[in-house]
Each structure stands twice: as structure tokens, then as C-alpha cells.
């Protein structure tokens, strides 16, 4: 999979989402439960706003000194006997990983959930090289055996599937004979995957945060698959977006608290692990540890007006409160990063060419900005994207003409006055029962989902009424 998960038009993708009733009800109940759990976990911590400010400060300080901390990290990984590869592009990153795997003559790879490995299309590269690659996170595993169905949520990737769909896939692909209870399905996956862990030559994980002064990475999980991936195989390759780093364990601890509470409403998830190359005398853990630090467009964001987007800790809280995500679902974004943060970073990583609609997939209600544990001004960044898209003339020509006409009309008192006077007679043919029922592009987009009242007659307008009142008061 790559950043892009669906090449169809945005409108086609959203119509599909809107028509998928199961998905919509799954997303709305997941949102409701995650929202409630996040809120109670945030309240429990006490003074959540202060914690958010601290989170923001940590992220901003680290980004401001990113070269320093990455260098410290690399030095410390090296001191512990590990390897560090700085990859400017996704191609560099995935071919380095392929080379390591080839060098090890590895055939069997286990992987724990990582968004950045999707971004660099690592799975495809490794499978093309003839490796068996197994996603071990339960949600990701379900998607993999269902012919690599794309994820629809950054924390709960298989959110769009129900238990009977999963049971069917397990039956077809794994010879599963049990019922559709999540517990039995999970037990079956445990049995199948346990064997995969024990046989694997290489384990590949993402990285929630790298810890600069330790030369280690931090993984935050609930299932324990990340730990098995980094404990059993003799080689561990960890892949990180270059901005996912903290100075020390103290900052990690604060961000992990914000992450767990914001993502799933837990105080801490079941497994939070700090890990690096195996130390002398330790008999498991990787004999060889590789850390791949990925730029892939991030340095273009650094120092730009979108800099704050790099503060993201991938908790998914913004997805869980977004009214647009609620209705169109994750797949409609056409990116491995959906929801508000996806609408901000996908166009930055993938360009406006394929993703210019995403910043408009927002009601600008700012619920995302409110919940962000590291205070990314998400809705402001969406507005900024919209400005750039309009400035670069990437909107359709008919929309530009309509906007220009509206602009001219609204900036001239005479024209505006005339428009008000003629609005009612002019809209008569387009209206029925006081509602506009047809019209050009922008109007049509609006009335597809909402009512638009027909403008009132001049003599019934508020202005006329007010003028009459004024007259009355003066008398």
C-alpha cells in the first residue's frame, strides 16, 4: 500500500462511503465510545489543558532542534551496536530494508502496525522480493488476509468490517471453522500468528517515539505483537518518520500518557516498551538492530506554515470527533491518513494534484483542534490549504467564475442592492414551495444536502422592514 489507497474521484469515494450503512453505523458507534472514553481519561488526569500545553511544548522544542536530537539518537544507536539509515525518499527507505532482508537471506517477516511503512510501500517491495510478510496487529492481519483491504482508521484499521465479514474471511483464507465471536476469532489469529512469530527471520516495527539520549525506540500497543516482533527474530528493523522523536524518557512518558488517553481512553496501554539492540548477555531481542529514519517530504513541511502538523503523535482523536469522517468514513479520504489530520498531511506528503479536495472535506467546526493533545491548529491548517489551493487556481474554472461573480456582486453596494431586488423574481423558476431546487455548481452542491430558501420579495425583506420601523420610531 502507498499513501494513496484509492485512485477514484473524491466524489465517487464519498458517495460510496455515504451509501455504506454498515460502515457508517460502525464509525458512529466507534466515535461515540472513543470520544466518551477519551473525555473521561482526560478528565481523570486533571488539568488536561495544562498537559496539552506541555505536550505541545515538547513537540515544538523537539522539532525546533530536530537535527540535534536525530544526531544524538544516531550516535547512541551506534554506540549500542545498531545501524541507522537516514532515508530521504520512500524508495531509499524501502530498498535499504529490502537489502537488509536479502543480506540476511530472510524469507519470513513479521511486522507490527506502522503507518510509515505503508507510506514507503515497504510491504510491496518485500513481497516482490519473494518474502512472506505477515501483519501481526489483529486489525491489520484481518485486512491483509482480506486481500490487503486498506485501513480506514489510524488506530482501529479494520473499523469498517463487522464480525460476520471477518468470520467469512477467516473461513475462506484460514480454514477457520468457529463462530463469529470476536473472542474466538482473536484466539484463532493468536494460534496462527504465534507460529509465524516463532519462525520469523526478521521483525519490522514502526516507532511511536525514538528516545534520543538512549538510542532506543518506544512502542505503544495493547496486543503484545510489537514486543514479540522485536523479541523473537534475530533482526529487528524499526522504521520512523523523522519527526517522531523525544529527548528523553521523561518527555516520552508525558507524550505516551497523552497518546494513550487520547487514542483509546486508557491511562496507559497494556504494553509500552522502550527497546533497542540487544545488550551483552541478553539471549533474546535482536542481534542486529536497524533504525530507518524517513524524510519522504517531511522536511518540506518543516519550517513552513504547516510546521505544526509535524507535532502529530498519531492518536487519532481528531478522527473520533470529526463529523465529516463520521459520515464518509476513512476510505473516502483515499489516503492511509484519513480524518482531519489526514486532510492536513496527505496533501503535504502527496501534493495537491491528487488530494486537493481533502482540505474541503471539513465543516471547520474545530472539534479536531479542541481535542488534539499537542494542540495542532488543525482547522486553521485546513483553511490555509484552501487558500493555497485557490491561489494556485486548482479549483474548477466554473467555480472560479461563480466565485468571481459573487465577489464582484458583494463588493459593490449598487450591484448588491440590485441583486437583492432581483433575487426573488430571478429565482422564481428555480424554486418550488419557497425552496431553491436547482441551480449552478455551487448552489447544487449546497442543496444536495441542505435546504436553501428562496430569497424573499423586496417588500418582505428585513431591510425594508427595518427602514419602516425606523420611520415609525422617528414619528
Amino acid at each position, binding site marked *: 500500500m502507498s499513501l494513496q489507497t484509492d485512485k477514484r474521484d473524491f466524489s465517487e469515494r464519498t458517495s460510496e462511503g455515504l451509501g455504506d450503512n454498515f460502515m457508517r453505523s460502525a464509525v458512529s458507534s466507534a466515535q461515540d465510545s472513543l470520544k466518551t472514553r477519551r473525555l473521561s481519561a482526560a478528565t481523570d488526569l486533571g488539568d488536561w489543558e495544562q498537559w496539552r500545553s506541555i505536550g505541545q511544548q515538547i513537540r515544538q522544542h523537539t522539532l525546533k532542534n530536530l537535527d540535534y536530537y536525530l544526531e544524538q539518537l544516531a550516535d547512541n544507536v551506534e554506540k549500542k551496536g545498531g545501524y541507522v539509515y537516514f532515508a530521504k525518499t520512500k524508495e531509499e527507505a524501502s530498498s535499504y530494508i529490502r537489502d537488509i532482508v536479502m543480506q540476511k537471506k530472510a524469507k519470513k517477516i513479521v511486522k507490527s502496525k506502522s503507518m510509515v511503512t505503508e507510506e514507503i510501500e515497504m510491504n510491496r517491495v518485500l513481497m516482490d522480493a519473494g518474502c512472506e510478510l505477515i501483519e501481526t496487529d*489483529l486489525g491489520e492481519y484481518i485486512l491483509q488476509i482480506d486481500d490487503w483491504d486498506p485501513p480506514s482508521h489510524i488506530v482501529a484499521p479494520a473499523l469498517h468490517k463487522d464480525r460476520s465479514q471477518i468470520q467469512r474471511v477467516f473461513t475462506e483464507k484460514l480454514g477457520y471453522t468457529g463462530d463469529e465471536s470476536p473472542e474466538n476469532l482473536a484466539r484463532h489469529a493468536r494460534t496462527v500468528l504465534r507460529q509465524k512469530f516463532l519462525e520469523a527471520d526478521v521483525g519490522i516495527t514502526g516507532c511511536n517515539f525514538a528516545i534520543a539520549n538512549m538510542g532506543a525506540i518506544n512502542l505503544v500497543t495493547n496486543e503484545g505483537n510489537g514486543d514479540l516482533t522485536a523479541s523473537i527474530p534475530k533482526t529487528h528493523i524499526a522504521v520512523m518518520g523523522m519527526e517522531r522523536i523525544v529527548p528523553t524518557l521523561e518527555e516520552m*512518558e508525558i507524550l505516551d500518557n497523552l497518546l494513550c488517553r487520547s487514542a483509546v481512553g486508557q*491511562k496507559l496501554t497494556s504494553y509500552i516498551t522502550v*527497546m533497542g539492540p540487544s545488550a551483552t548477555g*541478553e539471549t*533474546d*531481542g535482536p542481534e542486529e538492530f536497524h533504525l530507518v529514519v524517513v524524510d519522504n517530504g517531511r522536511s518540506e513541511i518543516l519550517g513552513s506554515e504547516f510546521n505544526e502538523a509535524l507535532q502529530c503523535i498519531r492518536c487519532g482523536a481528531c478522527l473520533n470527533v470529526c463529523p465529516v469522517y463520521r459520515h464518509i468514513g476513512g476510505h473516502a479520504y483515499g489516503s492511509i491518513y484519513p480524518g482531519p489530520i489526514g486532510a492536513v498531511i496527505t496533501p503535504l506528503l502527496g501534493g495537491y494534484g491528487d488530494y486537493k479536495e481533502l482540505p474541503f472535506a471539513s465543516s471547520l467546526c474545530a472539534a479536531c483542534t479542541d481535542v488534539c493533545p499537542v494542540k495542532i491548529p488543525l482547522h486553521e491548517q485546513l483553511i490555509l490549504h484552501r487558500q493555497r489551493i485557490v491561489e494556485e487556481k486548482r479549483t474548477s474554472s466554473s467555480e472560479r467564475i461563480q466565485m468571481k461573480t459573487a465577489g464582484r456582486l458583494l463588493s459593490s453596494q449598487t450591484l448588491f442592492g440590485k441583486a437583492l431586488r432581483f433575487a426573488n423574481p430571478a429565482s422564481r423558476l428555480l424554486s418550488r414551495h419557497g425552496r431553491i431546487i436547482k441551480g449552478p455548481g455551487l448552489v447544487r452542491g449546497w442543496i444536495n444536502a441542505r435546504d436553501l430558501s428562496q430569497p424573499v420579495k423586496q417588500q418582505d425583506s428585513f431591510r425594508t422592514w427595518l427602514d419602516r420601523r425606523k420611520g415609525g420610531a422617528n414619528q
Partner: protein
Amino acid sequence: MTVYGKESFLNTIAAKLGRERVYDVQRPDLRPLIPNSYGSLTNDDLIEILKEQCYFIHTQLIESNSEILQTTLNDLIHANGGGAVITSGDDRFLHYGLSFPNSFVWEEAAGREENLLRSEAANTAIVFADYALAESGTIVIESRPDQGRSLHFLPTNYIAIIEKERLVLRSTQAAADLNRRVEAGEPVGSAINFISGPSNSADIEMQLVVGVHGPLRATYVLI
């Protein structure tokens, strides 16, 4: 060469930040900013907080003491359905005079394959916590030659013994202490685990399943 492509990568970053590379940075002291919503707490208060949290994380908490610890553990092993036991090589097993039939110890001499096989075959793992965090119901434990990483994940049942004096309020205290050791150059295990209960997943219809890849059950024994 063990580090590739660093200089030009980091130079790009510095250029994007509109400055020269930096080589000396002081991280801000965040401690004065951290809210203290609990006030001062006694060890008994911490135990109460831990007990309550264990309920939420599907973890059984048993209060025992050094005299009856062996019996408590025997009962738990029995309740797990018996089978093989694997322990870490922690000195405290000796200190408390603990021993178990049909048991193995994770040891350097056994080597990788053997330690993994023993853990996979074990029905119950028993370890001693380095720290315990009351608020989140977490035990903190480091990898060592006599305590591998997989020990916490391969066995079906997991028992962690917590000595009361190792109980602190939350992750803040454990992280500060561990970082102090890192900064002082003291050796720290290549893996530090913060474990809060058994493995679990909500990937199918957001319904919680306890016991996925790691242990199916977790028990803390407080002494």
C-alpha cells in the same frame, strides 16, 4: 559504517529551519509545569489506587506477604491449570525462598532457542517488578541476561510480584528515575517494559477481547 546518510539529511533539516546546525541544546525542565492532582499520598493510598485500576485492566490483584508468598503462588499456578512454569533469574526468588516443581529459569547459559522454547511451553511466567505504578496498574521491568523480553509475552499466564515499597504513583516517577540512570551512564536493560495487565484488542467491532498475542491472564501479587 553503521550510520548512513546522516550529514546531508541533517543539513537539509537545519536549512529548512533557516539556521546552521546546532550541537548543544538544553531540553526545557518540564517538572515545574506538571500538575499534581493527587496531593501527598501514603503507601496505603497507593495500594487503594492500584486495586481500583487493576479492576479496569482485567488484572487480578492478590494481597499476600513474604511468609505465605510460596503458597499464594502455588495456588495461582494451580488455578491456571498447572503446567510448566518459567521464572526470571531474579535474586529475589532465592531471597523469598521460592521454588516450583516443573519449572525453568530464564538463563543466559540456556541460549536463545532454549529460552524461547521454555517460555513458549510454559503455562505460567513469574517475575518480580522493578517498579509498580498505582495510577495505571503498571509494572515496570527491564531485560537482563536472566530475564528475557519474551518471558513476558510467550507464556499463557503472567504473574508479577510487587513489593509494596516499589509502588509509586505514576509513570512520571519511574521515567524520572530511569532517565536519571541513563544520564548517569548506568547500565539499563536493552528493553524496558511498562506492562499494564494482559494483552488485549478491540480490533473487531470495538469489542474488547482480553488475551491476544501476549498472556491471556495477568495477576499481580502484592507483598
